[in-house]
């Protein structure tokens, strides 16, 4: 790489974010920077993909593919957007492709299955009783089904907005649509989710 080009890219990355700067270091052969990026984004990518595909093993496999693609495309990396936007664009692309393939193979039967991937509660003030745990699992299953029933793009938009706290503009870049389209996606998605889940806190 020519030094001039490198400086320009470094300046561009500085105006974007620190992650893009780290990625430029990876491009120059710094493996430690890749480790830093992995440490920072590992959990959020896996959790995002998990909530999209709703299978932990598949989510980890797809997340591996995401980071593998990031590493393999390091030589052609250009910091044209925030690193997280680029990362989630890859993750969304892979996860939605997997969902489409899976849909063709298994139809909608997955939604009717009792999943073995129900997570164990991680944080709790005290040990929940069996009854509380059952109530939690029923509630969780209802949330999972409600989210899974959303159209793919609405689902991805909700997950990025709710769990990743991404801004409309960032979600728009990930999904390759306008900001107003994202607002519309979220409006419809939250309307559907309110209808299915709003009773949960009042019951």
């Amino acid at each position: 790489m020519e030094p001039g080009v490198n400086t320009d890219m470094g300046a561009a990355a500085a105006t974007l974010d620190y992650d893009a700067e780290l990625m430029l270091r990876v491009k120059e052969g710094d493996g430690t920077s890749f480790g830093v990026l992995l440490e920072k984004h590992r959990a959020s990518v896996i959790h995002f993909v998990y909530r999209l595909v709703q299978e932990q093993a598949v989510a980890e496999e797809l997340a591996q593919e995401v980071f593998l693609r990031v590493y393999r495309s390091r030589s052609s990396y250009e910091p044209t957007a925030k690193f997280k936007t680029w990362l989630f664009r890859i993750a969304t692309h892979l996860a939605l492709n997997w969902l489409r393939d899976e849909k063709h193979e298994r139809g909608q039967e997955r939604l009717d299955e009792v999943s073995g991937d129900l997570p164990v509660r991680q944080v709790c003030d005290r040990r929940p009783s069996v009854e509380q745990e059952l109530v939690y699992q029923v509630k969780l299953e209802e949330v999972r089904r409600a989210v899974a029933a959303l159209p793919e793009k609405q689902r991805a938009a909700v997950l990025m907005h709710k769990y990743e706290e991404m801004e409309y503009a960032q979600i728009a870049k990930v999904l390759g649509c306008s900001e107003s389209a994202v607002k519309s996606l979220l409006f419809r998605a939250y309307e559907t989710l309110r209808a299915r889940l709003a009773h949960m806190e009042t019951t």
Partner: protein
Amino acid sequence: MNCPIENRNSAMLVAHAAGELDPLAARVLEQHLAGCEACRSVAAEQIAMWKALDAWEAPPVSPDFDRRLYRRIGEGAPLSWWERLARPFRAIPLRQALPLTATAGLLLMAGLLLQHPGSYAPAPAPHSQAVRADQVESTLDDLDLLRQFGTANSAESVHNDAM
């Protein structure tokens, strides 16, 4: 303020539920909610739905996630000729590899021997026939001598016994 429901601007109600509104905007919206039944209802539902989504925790990440990733990265790296040659055998443990190597060596030797049996036969010694004839002659002479010696001994012992 304009009614978010009437203006189809529920983004404000979503932001309110998520706690994303700045204090001033939040105060203005709450004043509106106090007098607007429709907005109050949607805002309450949005908060309830938001809390329901909060309950969905993702499972913890596998502890070997990084190790698996770095192994895959390593597999994709360009290999030297030796690594490429040894790659198919990397999974075979040393304990199994040694007998396998020995067997392969023996089979190779056997193959070479079968293909060129003449070239590995011991070369005939040029003077072996002459040496062998001399040896046979000498052995026969020795046997003859022994026989004569034995006959003489037995005759002598008979003579001694008779005396």
